[in-house]
């Protein structure tokens, strides 16, 4: 059996915009393979090139260099109306002069689908996105969430082989956004097509995606599953962008058997896996620990774990958990989340001297420190 062709494949894609004498490189050397049926997210801060990447896949922008393939067919240079993908635009871009039905039917009509089949498929799709009975409304008579669902239906009704969604929930308030995340995931399972999802919201990407590409300044920093990205960020940028993470800098004092001992302060040592990186003793390194992996205790815990001492400088009650900021003796501030479970008492208050500890497996090397 031959391997299934990837739904979307970008090879060496570069995109430069020329505005007057300036050249803006929106995308630099992008290689990306998205599998059939995958929920794939492009995650990154505003201006990192997510929309441009999406527009290159849809055909609105031609790459300055590189190729785009859809299901094994090279489509570089093919106009958007001849590509078998559909897009849900950042601002929906609904046709203001058409009602909901006509908006959704637009693609089918351009493809000369028979009249009764159009009306059957449009109504079916309106049911899937919970918009039955709204088909004669104009877009401006709908709420933001409803407009969003019209945009989704308008793209999905064409049964594209891949759906491109550019920050589709960006304009919705938090409650609606969370509801729509669940809804989108359900619809994707139901129709079974490839979703490429652009977002700058890391929580959204983590909860919905099969895989995430974290982008920064036009390049992919890390491409992995949500869990891998969260637990094993490959760079300082990823660690900082996804969730809260504590960065500790130090110098490798000894390396043996896949573990390195890092000196993070005078006489304070932390053990971390070397991840097959060739690390010589004396190298300056950075590592990260997630706040929820750290335990707080009054006494130095026994055992081989990592431990640091510090003073609690801030306590913030968050409902299900409490966030402690601890200024350690190394000088670094470390954030710790503790669940407010039934068993947990008052762990610490401001000004307390306290010990932080975690398993060596939970400190993760993210590379050499930036110079300076």
């Amino acid at each position, binding site marked *: 059996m031959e391997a299934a062709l990837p739904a979307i494949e970008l090879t060496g894609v570069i995109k430069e915009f020329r505005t007057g004498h300036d050249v803006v490189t929106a995308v630099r050397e992008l290689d990306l393979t998205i599998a059939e049926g995958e929920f794939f997210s492009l995650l990154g801060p505003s201006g990192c090139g997510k929309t441009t990447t999406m527009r290159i896949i*849809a055909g*609105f922008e031609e790459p300055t260099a590189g190729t785009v393939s859809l299901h094994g067919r090279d489509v570089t240079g093919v*106009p*958007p*109306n*001849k590509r078998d993908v*559909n*897009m849900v*635009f*950042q*601002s929906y*871009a*609904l*046709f*203001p*002069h058409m009602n909901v039905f006509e908006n959704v039917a*637009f*693609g089918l009509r*351009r*493809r000369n689908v028979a009249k009764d089949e159009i009306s059957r498929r449009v109504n079916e799709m309106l049911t899937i996105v919970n918009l039955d009975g709204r088909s004669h409304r*104009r877009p401006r008579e709908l709420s933001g969430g409803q407009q969003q669902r019209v945009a989704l239906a*308008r*793209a999905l009704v*064409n049964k594209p082989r891949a759906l491109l969604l550019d920050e589709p929930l960006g304009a919705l308030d938090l409650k609606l956004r969370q509801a729509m995340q669940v809804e989108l995931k359900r619809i994707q399972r139901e129709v079974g097509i490839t979703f490429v999802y652009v977002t700058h919201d890391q929580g959204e990407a983590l909860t919905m995606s099969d895989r995430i590409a974290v982008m920064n300044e036009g390049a992919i920093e890390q491409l992995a599953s949500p869990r891998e990205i969260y637990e094993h960020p490959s760079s300082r940028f990823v660690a900082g962008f996804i969730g809260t993470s504590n960065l500790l800098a130090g110098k490798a004092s000894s390396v043996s058997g896949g573990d390195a001992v890092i000196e993070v302060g005078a006489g304070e040592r932390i053990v971390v896996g070397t991840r097959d990186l060739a690390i010589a003793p004396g190298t300056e390194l950075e590592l990260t620990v997630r706040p929820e992996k750290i335990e707080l205790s009054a006494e130095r815990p026994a055992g081989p774990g990592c431990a640091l001492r510090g003073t609690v400088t801030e306590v913030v009650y968050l409902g299900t958990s409490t966030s402690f900021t601890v200024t350690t003796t190394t000088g670094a501030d470390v954030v710790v989340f503790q669940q407010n479970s039934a068993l947990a008492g008052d762990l610490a208050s401001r000004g307390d001297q306290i010990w932080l500890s975690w398993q060596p497996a939970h400190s993760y090397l993210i590379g050499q420190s930036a110079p300076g």
Partner: protein
Amino acid sequence: MPGARPRRSVPRARLGKVFAPYLLSLPAGLWLLILFLIPLVVMLSLSLQSCNNATGACVMTWHWAEFGQQLSLYHSQLLTSFYFAGAATVIDVVVSFPIAYWIAFYGGNKKNFFLLMLLVPFFVSFVIRTVVWSFILSDQGVVLGTLKHAHLLPQSFHVLATGYAVVAGLAYNYLPFTALPLYVAIERIDKRVLDAAYDLYASKRQAFMNVILPLTMPGLFAAFLLTFIPALGDYVNQQVLGGTSDTMIGTVIQNAFLTNLDYAGGSALSAVLMAVALIGIFAYARLLGSTAIEEYL
């Protein structure tokens, strides 16, 4: 303490709220009354009076037949006017649509500059512009003279003093009244809607027909009114560029008032022109679907 405020101020504030809208509409209302409604009534009443041509004195005779008489006397000039103004409007729409489209979509940050370029010729007086056109189009002028000299046109060829020259003059003079409303309408279109159309398999032509054109309709309607109506009553272009055979209704009305001092006849003819134009506009709005127009205005 809020309770300590004098009670009197409450009804006064409410009174202000009630009268504010009327006060605000007062200037516009007075403007309409003095400069439009009163002259209109005067004109309509004049058309029912009988005047002594020698003395200019008029007496009300309720002469309703005046309208019918004027219509039967000058219906051919009325038709010519509709024909010329219509042709000029069609030319203006065809010429200015691409201009407006280009400025709106590709003007970038120079949009205002391009709009200004469009308007620059119109800083020159209407009459002078038209007279200059008569030089340009004259039998031995820059254009025709050169072409005739190169034997590309027969010596007898002429444009001036024909309906073509009048239509060309009208089209030229009223172009901004078409281009600007069209530009405003096209400029308002969200460009991403075009991307959406292409994404949904529309060809360039289909995207234009199904998205751009319908969204431009309100602008097209405004452009039509702003061009056609003034062109309909225009007499300068016809007098400067036209011949004696294709007289437009504006010239007839002007002659009635200024040459023949036939105020009753001129007023009646103006009223007839207005009535016919209004009927035409309502029919046109109906045709385009007035509800669709209202929605965008």
